[in-house]
């Protein structure tokens, strides 16, 4: 079933603005380039459902890997050979674009990584990953939004705000800093001044809805300004399908590439919970990884000149069991991978303090043991892309995480 309607796409709407634009930030003139000619961007892709890091980037050089991961283990030989990254790790063959970027030093992997969360509930794990708090139970704001909020007043990145892709805003970017919502759409646009009248009513009666609707209309207008073809925006299937991921990236890239577009963006793709017939080099997980690979590729294409300033990071709430379960899938685990791509990434590296896969080396004798903290990677990117200090990162963006030092030198 497709995510959006099959109604023929109308001509894009013209939006009438009521007096006193709520979001002056969306109308600011183009900014002059900073002196170093860098204009950094950060794109966060949340993979919900827990990605099997050992099937995305296989430790093919580890003697215990093939035995544990069984029929779905990646291998350097055979008809669907994994793509070697270095002498030890190989990426799933469904990700040729990522492998190409890795060779061009524009993609990197952090392996055996996890947040500070050590239970195995998706929903709590996602809340921890996206909220940036040390434990579950915080669902009002996300770390990416708080990072925007922590930038000095008047900072260009803060002024331009964030972008949330999809029909609902991912927790990671929810919060007080302005966020633009955008999703491919295909309903007939209202005619006349209905949008302005509804906005006017909301401004008098329901400020929360006024803000939301104004942002939705702004996002639509920006997409219109970029003259995106109606056809290109219309997803053929759901946002979480391989084609949907590609299309979401395509649309988001146009908005982010614009000079007055948002500099940070969040996307969330569901469906990574592979308990049954996960597949290895081919099959269900490989199809999803192919979609993610397509998203990386679309960002590279769509960002054009701005690719060199861009860092993309794909994160997931936790990993999966090292040993396959009774149904040729994997259950909820701990350590997994973080994938980095973009012209701003100092790539060509798998960053891992490899814990090994012998029974005693596994976390609770079942999962890949985490040796890197996902928050360290995120902090490193935020520090290097936007200049946030370790103190702010450890206190406001990722509360109570002072002990987790930013992982530096991720960015060129």
């Amino acid at each position, binding site marked *: 079933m497709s995510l959006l309607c099959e109604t023929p796409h109308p001509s894009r709407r013209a939006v009438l603005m009521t007096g006193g634009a709520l979001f002056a930030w969306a109308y600011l003139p183009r900014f002059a380039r900073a002196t170093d000619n860098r204009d950094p961007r950060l794109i966060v892709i949340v993979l919900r459902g827990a990605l099997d890091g050992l099937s995305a980037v296989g430790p093919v050089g580890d003697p215990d890997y093939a035995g544990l991961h069984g029929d779905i283990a990646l291998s350097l030989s055979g008809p669907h050979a994994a793509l070697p990254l270095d002498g030890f790790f190989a990426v799933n063959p469904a990700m040729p674009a990522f492998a190409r970027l890795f060779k061009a030093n524009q993609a990197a992997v952090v392996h055996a990584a996890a947040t500070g969360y050590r239970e195995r509930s998706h929903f709590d794990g996602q809340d921890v990953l996206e909220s940036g708090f040390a434990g579950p139970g915080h669902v009002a704001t996300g770390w990416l939004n708080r990072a925007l909020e922590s930038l000095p007043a008047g900072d260009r990145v803060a002024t331009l705000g964030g972008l949330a892709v999809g*029909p609902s805003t991912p927790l990671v970017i929810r919060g007080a800093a302005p966020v633009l919502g955008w*999703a491919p759409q295909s309903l007939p646009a209202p005619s006349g001044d*209905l949008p302005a*009248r509804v906005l006017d*009513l909301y401004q008098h009666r329901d400020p929360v*809805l006024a803000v939301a609707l104004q942002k939705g209309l702004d996002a639509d207008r920006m997409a219109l300004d970029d003259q995106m073809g109606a056809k290109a925006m219309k997803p053929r299937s759901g946002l*979480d399908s391989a084609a949907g991921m590609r299309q979401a990236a395509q649309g988001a890239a146009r908005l982010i590439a614009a000079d007055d577009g948002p500099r940070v963006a969040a996307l969330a793709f569901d469906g990574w919970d592979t308990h049954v017939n996960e597949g290895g080099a081919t099959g269900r997980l490989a199809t999803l990884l192919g979609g993610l690979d397509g998203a990386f590729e679309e960002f590279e294409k769509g960002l054009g000149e701005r690719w060199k300033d861009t860092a993309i990071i794909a994160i997931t709430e936790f990993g999966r069991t090292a040993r396959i379960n009774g149904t040729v899938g994997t259950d*909820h685990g701990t350590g997994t991978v973080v994938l980095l791509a973009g012209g701003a990434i100092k790539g060509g590296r798998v960053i891992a303090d490899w814990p090994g896969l012998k029974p005693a080396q596994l976390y609770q004798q079942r999962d890949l043991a985490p040796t890197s903290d996902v928050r360290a990677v995120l902090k490193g990117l935020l520090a290097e892309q936007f200049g946030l200090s370790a103190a702010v990162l450890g206190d406001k963006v990722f509360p109570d995480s002072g002990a987790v030092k930013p992982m530096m030198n991720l960015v060129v």
Partner: protein
Amino acid sequence: MAIPAKGSVPPDPVLVIFNRFGLGARPGDRDRMAGDPRGYLKAELRQPDIAMIAYDDPAYADLLGSTPAIQASMAAGFQRKLDRGLAKAAAQPAKAKAPAATGAASPISTAPAMPSAAVKASAPAGSPQAVPAKPTPATPPVEATLYRAEAQARFDKALRAEVGFVERLVYFWSNHFCVSVAKDNIVRASAGAFEREAIRPFVLGRFADMLMAVERHPAMLFYLDNQQSVGPDSRAGKNRQRGLNENLAREILELHTLGVGSGYTQADVTSFARIMTGWTMAGREGRLGEPGSSVFNANAHEPGDAVLLGKTYPAGGVGQAEAALNDIAIHPATAQHIATQLARHFISDDPPAAAVARLAKVFLKNSGNLRALAAALIGMPEAWSTPLAKMRSPFDYVAAIRRAGGPGPNDPGQSLNWLNALGEPLWQPPGPNGFSDQGDNWASAEGMKIRLDIAWQAAQQVKDIGNPNDMLDAVIGPSASPETRQAVSRAESKQQGLALLLMAPEFQRR
């Protein structure tokens, strides 16, 4: 979260029954219920079969029970496989022998064991005897046909309800025990039947009975993979080298009953997964029972005693899991979990702790009697004093639009498309925790823009709007704000007036 109502004036009780508890007023409803709004709510709880969708109703002739629905899906799947095999063989005549020796083509010689209902239902996909040379793409897959018929039945039921409180309870429990049609064809074919068979009969019954019906239903067994989970020391486990899958067991504890953080451990999850082994569905060949029906497969059940939450459940086949489920169904953590969710759904995103505690107490005192729980909910002062500040979920919003403006097209396609666009595709939640019940989630920028588009599309479809001001009185009533009243009355057309009504805060919030 902003609270739209000014001051502490309690909301209009008629608006409370239709927005907080029901599915929105149809023209005429408000006048009928103005005398005793609480009485109408309570009256719904006294109607014995109010939640049921009856098979003998001619309006629902297209619906199938889950067993024949799954049989139809299996037959169609078998036929698709057959067609693919033949197409492949026709394309590569030289290699025709090779695939025939493997699994794909071998069942050709064996007539599938299919009861009559399934053959009848699968007729559109072509009968097994008359294998077409080419696939016939014109007929929609049987799973899609069933899904749409079930969707239509759900929309019809929403339109016919007097207030819709019990329907809202159905949606609440259906989301609590959600399955997703994105999983596979079996779930796509049976998701609607799952709601009619495992949810509707029990919404005013016992929680333990609903839990039991849900966890043994094929749609749930497939959605959370239990049909594949095999006890490692069971006969099947030893022969086939298959093993445990702890997905269902974990979500029962985390989502369906006790709730996350209530004290169970990874060892409890694994142990419960062992207890649940053998709960499965009979396959197409019918070796374990009628194809598509829920069965207990003793051969896949992990033998021996098992400990869950400190209590030992002696070996005992299907009874082992039944005993465990009956215990956790009335566990205090379950009561707390359900009470919190229910109060959050019907009262506010951050429900008052006292209200939650009272509901939990009622749940425990009545051993999970859901009618008593629903009655307690409408008996709470908070239900009538808390401002109507939550956002209507997409389904509630679409249902309220249809109730206000008329049924819309004769086909569920448009309503289903609206739900997709709003991010709440029917029976297709993003994960086993269902769709969000936090109001803010539905007030996103993109979501509000889509609501505007939908309100406009809906307003254009209504043939005879009459006077939009009268419509406002009929649907919202005297508590509509002066600004809303003015916006509707000053609209440039009747369509625009109706669209403004459908976008008004009083229509969006509940």
